[in-house]
């Protein structure tokens, strides 16, 4: 069951540059999408979300883009900072209680 996919297990980005993390989904019933950040030995921390009625949502350095026709979303972090190094999970829900997570992308920011 791979309803939410993050095809890049890891990504390295120079400090100050843009980090782009990608996520694809297959379930057309999903109508809300979230990005979580996770450090080792901690639980996922909510970053930003987007409803299917929008195509962009911005919060400070973080912007999420949604392309419904392609069933694709991306998280942009600009500028990238060393503290952004973590595992990033994309999650989706059809508006009920259950979040379906992707496998995560490990982001490493190189100073």
């Amino acid at each position: 069951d791979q309803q939410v996919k993050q095809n890049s297990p890891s990504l390295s980005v120079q400090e100050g540059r843009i980090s782009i993390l990608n996520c694809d989904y297959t379930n057309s019933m999903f109508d809300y999408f979230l990005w979580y950040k996770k450090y080792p030995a901690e639980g996922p921390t909510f970053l930003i979300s987007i409803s299917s009625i929008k195509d962009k949502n911005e919060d400070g350095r973080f912007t999420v883009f949604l392309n419904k026709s392609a069933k694709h979303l991306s998280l942009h972090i600009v500028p990238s900072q060393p503290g952004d190094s973590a595992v990033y999970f994309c999650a989706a829900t059809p508006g009920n209680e259950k979040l379906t997570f992707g496998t995560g992308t490990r982001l490493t920011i190189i100073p």
Partner: protein
Amino acid sequence: EPEVTQTPSHQVTQMGQEVILRCVPISNHLYFYWYRQILGQKVEFLVSFYNNEISEKSEIFDDQFSVERPDGSNFTLKIRSTKLEDSAMYFCASKIRDQPTNEQFFGPGTRLTVL
């Protein structure tokens, strides 16, 4: 800042034993969840709980699992007879109410090791 807490941080048990994982959700939250993450795999939904009853559960959440909110603050996950494949990180989460962001707040997790 309010946060979800979980105890213990690490639980080691023998196969076949019962374990209870405990969570204290954020105090004004109404929806409660358990997820798990097997090492190297993705975070998987187990169960959601609202108004003192299960609102949704996954295929993983079989008869060996149960949840309870025994008082106004704790939310527990019980595994009656643990199996080796139950070894995982278990995360509790809570949400204030139906809200546009659907944001669920996660605890730090309990690492369960079944020997």
